[in-house]
Each structure stands twice: as structure tokens, then as C-alpha cells.
């Protein structure tokens, strides 16, 4: 058996090379930039040689400890943004999946309709939502005014209403993924278990908590982990809806890293943000898989 392992490596080689070129090299380069003062003036080009310097941990110090750093506010925004989104993605996605797992009429059509938010390019949805949230001519204010006689709200220019708006948009966008994944998980649960439970006279609630949820756990774990990472790095919705505004009220780490790189052209500082984002996600992933394991289920 042992003799043949080299074949496996041969098969893996193309992937490894592609990963090395497309992932590891840029990743290491990015990490190394975070220890430099690189910006657009010293990065060098075909006319000017590069002249950026190694600055050690100065960037990290500035991001994490400098008094005028926006980092902690933005981190708080990011945490609120990520967990609210994933919570609602998961709960609503699960409820819809449970409904669609029933034998109801027109199930195929419902399933297809539920996928619409996913099928539309996210920037199109973001622009559509921005229009709906328009403070003067938007559909949502029109609706509130017509049926509830409420004063118009400038959704996108107050911190918490803007946060609400971007989160609502992203919940709408993210439900289909969770729903489809959960539906797949539900359908892989053997029917015999439910039949056996029926024989024992278990109530639907009991069946849900003792069969459905535990057996859904591996799927739920991967889906929420992926959802967390995606949401943490979800750039489109915030950038297109509010641009991080008002007054950086809805800025999250990736949108800020983007701004630092492509508006301020501080590549060193932006790479620092990138590394910090990466470390958070790795730490979270490890922590999360521990928790899932401790909860008694083998994952992977």
C-alpha cells in the first residue's frame, strides 16, 4: 500500500502548483507587506525602483493601539454584522428548509422561487435595495407612509437604520444558500428513524430535537462556518448600499481594508488589515470546530 503513495502526489501536483501560485505566494507576499510601509509612492514601478522599508510591527501597533485608529469601532460593526446575518440566515433558512421538506403542492416552484435572491448578481440586488431604501422616493418609505402614516426615514444616513438596511439586504441574499444546504441535510436523514419514532409515539417536537437537529449538525456546522467567513468578508452589499457610511457607521473590516488599499493607497496598512482578518477567521474556525466537537458530534 505504502509504495503507491507517490501516485497520489502526482495527482495532487497540478492542484498544489495552482494553489502555490494563486494562493500561497500572494498570501505570503501579502503577509510580508504588512511589515512594510509600502504605499503607492514607494512601491516602485517600471520608472522608479521600489523604496519601501521594513517597519516591523509598526503597522500592527498603529491599527490596534493608536488612539485615532478606527479599528475597534469597525471590528464591533463587523461582529454585529456577521453574527446577526448568520443567525438569521440559519434560522430562516432552516425554517424554510423544514417547510419545503414537507410534501406540499407546488414544492418545486417554491424551491425555485426561493433561489431567486441567489440567482441575481449580488450587485444588482444591492442597487435595487438601495433604491428601495431611498429616503425620499424609496419603496419602503412609501409603503410605511401609505399604510402606517409614518414620517419618511432616511434609512441609509443614520448609523443604526443603515446597519439595519444592510443587514436586511444581506439576510435576504444569504437565505437561499442556507436553505438549500439545510434541505440537502434534511433529505439525507434516513426516513426509518422517523418511522421508528412514530412507532414509539414521539411527538413532532421530540422528533425535531432528537432526530432532525442532531443529524443535521454536521451540515449545519459547515454551512454556518462558511456563512460566517463569507459574511465577515461580504464586500458588495455594504460597499454598494452605503459605501461604509454614514460617517463609517456601517464600515466593516474588508470594506475598510479596501479603502485603505485603493483609496488611500497604503498597501502596508491594508495588508495588515488583511492579516488581521485572516487571523480572526482562523481563530474563529478553530474555536468553532472545538465547540462543535465538544458538543458530542464528530465533524469531518
Amino acid at each position: 500500500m505504502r509504495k503507491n503513495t507517490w501516485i497520489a502526489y502526482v495527482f495532487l501536483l497540478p492542484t498544489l502548483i495552482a494553489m502555490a501560485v494563486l494562493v500561497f505566494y500572494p498570501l505570503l507576499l501579502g503577509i510580508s507587506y504588512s511589515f512594510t510601509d509600502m504605499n503607492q509612492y514607494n512601491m516602485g514601478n517600471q520608472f522608479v525602483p521600489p523604496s519601501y522599508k521594513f517597519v516591523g510591527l509598526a503597522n500592527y501597533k498603529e491599527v490596534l493601539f493608536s488612539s485615532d485608529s478606527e479599528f475597534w469601532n469597525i471590528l464591533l460593526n463587523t461582529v454585529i454584522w456577521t453574527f446577526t446575518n448568520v443567525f438569521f440566515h440559519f434560522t430562516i433558512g432552516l425554517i424554510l428548509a423544514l417547510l419545503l421538506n414537507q410534501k406540499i403542492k407546488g414544492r418545486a416552484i417554491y424551491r425555485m422561487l426561493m433561489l431567486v435572491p441567489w440567482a441575481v448578481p449580488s450587485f444588482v440586488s444591492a442597487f435595487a435595495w438601495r433604491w428601495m431604501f431611498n429616503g425620499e422616493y424609496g419603496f419602503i418609505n412609501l409603503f410605511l407612509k401609505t399604510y402606517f402614516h409614518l414620517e419618511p426615514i432616511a434609512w441609509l444616513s443614520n448609523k443604526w437604520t443603515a446597519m439595519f438596511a444592510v443587514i436586511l439586504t444581506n439576510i435576504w441574499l444569504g437565505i437561499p444558500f442556507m436553505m438549500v444546504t439545510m434541505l440537502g441535510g434534511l433529505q439525507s436523514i434516513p426516513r426509518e428513524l422517523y418511522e421508528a419514532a412514530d412507532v414509539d409515539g414521539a411527538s413532532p417536537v421530540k422528533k425535531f430535537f432528537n432526530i432532525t437537529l442532531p443529524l443535521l449538525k454536521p451540515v449545519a456546522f459547515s454551512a454556518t462556518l462558511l456563512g460566517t467567513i463569507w459574511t465577515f468578508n461580504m464586500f458588495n452589499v455594504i460597499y454598494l448600499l452605503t459605501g461604509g457610511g454614514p460617517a463609517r457607521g456601517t464600515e466593516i473590516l474588508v470594506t475598510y481594508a479596501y479603502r485603505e488599499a485603493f483609496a488611500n493607497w497604503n498597501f502596508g496598512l491594508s495588508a495588515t488589515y488583511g492579516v488581521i482578518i485572516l487571523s480572526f477567521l482562523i481563530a474563529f474556525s478553530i474555536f468553532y470546530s472545538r465547540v462543535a466537537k465538544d458538543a458530542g458530534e464528530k465533524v469531518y
Partner: protein
Amino acid sequence: MKKFLALFLIAAFLVTGVVGCGKTEEKKATEKQGPVTITFWHTFNQQETETINEIVKEFEAKNPDIKVEVQAVPFDGAQNKFKVAAQAGNAPDVFRAEIAWTPEFAALGYLAPIDDLLTPAEKADYLEAPFNYNVYNGKVWGVPQVTDALALLYNKRLLKEAGVEPPKTMDELVQVAKKLTDPKKDRYGFFYRGDSYWFLPFVWAFGGGLIDSNDLSIHIADPGSVQALKFLIDLRDKYGVVPKNIDFANDYDNMMVGFKTGKYAMILNGPWATSDILSGPEFKDPNNLGIAPIPVGPEGKTGSPVGGHNYVISANTKNREAAWKFIQFINSKEAQAKFAAKNNLLPTRKSAYAMEEVKNNRIVSDFKAVLEKATNRPVIPQGGQIFTDLTPNYQAALKGQKTPEKALNDVKAAWEKLLQTK
């Protein structure tokens, strides 16, 4: 370990997706023999593109030895697109750069100076304010194609019905706007944006400033600038002449719709917006659009940000002479007059203003009067980046999250850092 690796890969993959936002290879036409080909990127809007295409066609007919490849680049992404292309040595020969980008591109070494090509007579023909944006580090890096400035635009009919004249001072602005405001009917005398470019005229009118191009001193936290910000807050809270809740994310479009439909009687905007405004129901009669200079502040000062675009030649060009010949043609007084007549764009050549079709364009001549009182933004490489910190702080003050003093001092601190990057 395997699990850790898998998680690491997922995270790494997602992060590099963000950091490594791709470089696009630009196809470059290189023809050594026969007619030379020059590439030209512009950022004109749709109506203006028709005009430039006509002019380019004329140029090609007159110069069979030069072929021009024209590419329209959306204005929003143009700055980055040019930088990325120039970094890779694939920049177009001729580019239409926003005035604030020009010193930045020059400092980065992306542009070719044109001092030896520009004759003194031609240089003297350009208006001073727009031309100054092409001078950086003692060299000339381009020529101005168009200039603009924010003006006070007003709905003549509404002002007449209220029996008021367009305001000449900031005090009058308050008085006039009060008479034009009726919140019950959702009508307001004035409207301002959450974008800090629209804040600049007030900064100058109240005696504040931005960054001095000569000694690089920062004036955004000066008493005048603070007073300007307080004035804007007063317009909303004390005098109630602007809407209480301005939707920052949509405010440009809302401002335009509101002005076109008579909801807002006065706004600030530039010549580029006039063809859109004249398409609105309130302006079926184009004469209903009034154009006035920015009202003066308590000490009689005024100012409006000079905007516009330059034609520049990139450093990697192989056909500098042909590129210059092309620029001279598309920026001739005839070409500028064409843009003025068709698109209400303001020429930068004095000789163009002497031409009939420019003189007869009321919008152009009204804006010319505004421009004479306009102010240059700082001509420094960082000039294009000053808004990254000004806008969020300006919004925070408008929203009451920071006092005007605190907000503008935070801007000052951020700009001090910005000026250190070189």
C-alpha cells in the same frame, strides 16, 4: 492537523481574494511600421462621447498617418484603471485625467512632461486656474480640457413667486430660503449633500480653507471652517430650510430629482449637470434655470472648488509627438467650442470664449462668471485623497455624532498623516 489546514486554506483563499484584487492586462496596440497608432482613454459621459468621437474622426481624416484607438472608461473607476495600467507599463498614450489626479500621476512617474512641446503663446491662451492643476514640481504635465465650478442654481419661477432675488450673501441665503420653504408641502428653499465636495464652497465663504499648496499648512480646522459647518447645521436645525433627513447614499439623485420637480428651489451644482436639469419638468423653458455665484460669507469672501479634466501623455508612450499632435487637435479652440455648444462644457482657452457659439451659450457665460471667483483645490499629489477622511467626519458632524470642532480636528489629524506619505 488536516482540519486546521483545510480551515486555513478556506480562510486564506477568501482573504487573498480581497487583498489581491486582480491586475487586468490591457491589450496594447503596438505597430511599428506604417501609420502610428495611439491609444486614448477618456471619461466623457454619453452625450459628450458623441462629440469627442466626431472630433477624433475629423482628426483621423486630416492625419492619415495617425490612427487613434479610443476607449471610454467610466469616470468612477478611471483613476485606478489608469494607475494599474501605468504600473504595468500599459497605460494609454493619451488620457483624460481629472485635475486632482494629475499631480498624483506626475509624482508617481506615470506621466511625460510636455514643457518642450507647449509654446509660450499656447500656454498664455489657457485660463490660469485650470492650467495651474497641470503644474507640479516645476513642470507642466498636461493641458486643461474643461473646467467647472459649483454654482448656486435656482428655480427662477419659484423665487419670483416668493418675491425674492437670488441671494448674494449667506445671510440672504437664509432669508430667501426661509421664504421658499414649506415643510407641510414638502418644499424646501435649499438642499445640501453629505458629500464633502459640496461643503467646500461654505468653507471658503466663511474664511476657512483646506491645504495650502505652498507651505502645506492645513486650514480645515480653522475657525472659518468650523463656522461653515455650524452654518450648515443651523440651516437644518435653526432655520429649517433644508430637509431634516437627508439620505446620504442617494442624495445626488434625490437633489437632482427634487430640483427638477420644484421641490427644492436652490441647489449647488456644476455645468455638467445642466443638460440633465434642463430635461426636468420645471425647466421645460430653459430660461427658468438661474445660475449665480456662491453667496459671500460674513467677511465678503467666497469660493467654489475648481473642477475639470486635463489631457495628459503617459510616460510609457512610444509616440509622444503624435500624442501631442492629437491633443492639440482635440483641445483646439474649435473643439472646445464644440463641447461648449453641444454639452455646455466650459472651455479652458481664452480664445474659445471669444467665439460666437461660446458667447451665445448662456449657461457657459453664466458659469464663466462663477469661475472667475472660484478657488483652486490644493495642487498636491495627495489632493485626490483629501475627501476620504473629510466626508465621514463631515457626515458625523451633520449627524451630531461629533461636534463640528472635533470632526474637523480629526480631519486635520488625518491630513497631517496623509501629507507625510510620499
